[in-house]
């Protein structure tokens, strides 16, 4: 299973990553992907998640070729 993981804004700066390709044999949840990519780092409060550009939750499962994004509260407009 190949998953594209994206980070934005302050979170991207804190982690020093913008985009990571994750490979896995198992079907993972968003939380498991976070743990794998950040080396079990604690998830900062208020971080938002999107799967394939739709808002999602930590316990949602991710499918092959999905794009998962983590980002801080939005501040547009």
């Amino acid at each position, binding site marked *: 299973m190949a998953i594209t993981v*994206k980070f*934005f*804004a*302050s979170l991207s700066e804190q982690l020093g990553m913008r985009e990571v390709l994750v490979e896995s044999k198992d079907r993972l949840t968003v939380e498991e992907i976070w743990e794998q990519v950040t080396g079990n780092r604690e998830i900062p409060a208020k971080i938002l998640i*999107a799967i394939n*550009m739709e*808002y999602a939750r930590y316990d949602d499962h991710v499918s092959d070729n999905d794009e998962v*994004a983590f*980002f*801080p*509260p*939005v*501040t*547009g*407009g």
Partner: protein
Amino acid sequence: MKIAIIDKPFAPWQILSEYQQTLKSGCYGGTAVFVGTMRDFNEENEVRGMTLEHYPGMTEKHLEQICLDAIDRWNLVDALIIHRTGDLSPNDPIVLVAAWSAHRKEAFEACRFMIEDLKHTAPFWKKEKTNKGARWVEKNTPY
């Protein structure tokens, strides 16, 4: 319907003037517009510039959905959202939202809904360059 993400300064009133010429004449009685503009101060600090990051793809999808929701819910004649990204200077327009409707109530409510929904859900992030250094804006004012 029109949505756009623009990484250069844009002129809201000119965009409205041009876009409105494409609308069917005589069918709208009320147009409500909101323009968000970059200020040169925020939370008691001087702001010299701003960088607006976004999530390409998700942003467009979201703005489109906001327009469609507003058109559907208030039976609008049309709706438009333009949002700036990249490096901004004070007084640069950040966002333009417009709703065309038969009556004023629907135009106002739809316009307000669109900017609130955008501020709460559209994946944009502001980083301000202040007299105390650069900082990410942590949250928008709630209303």
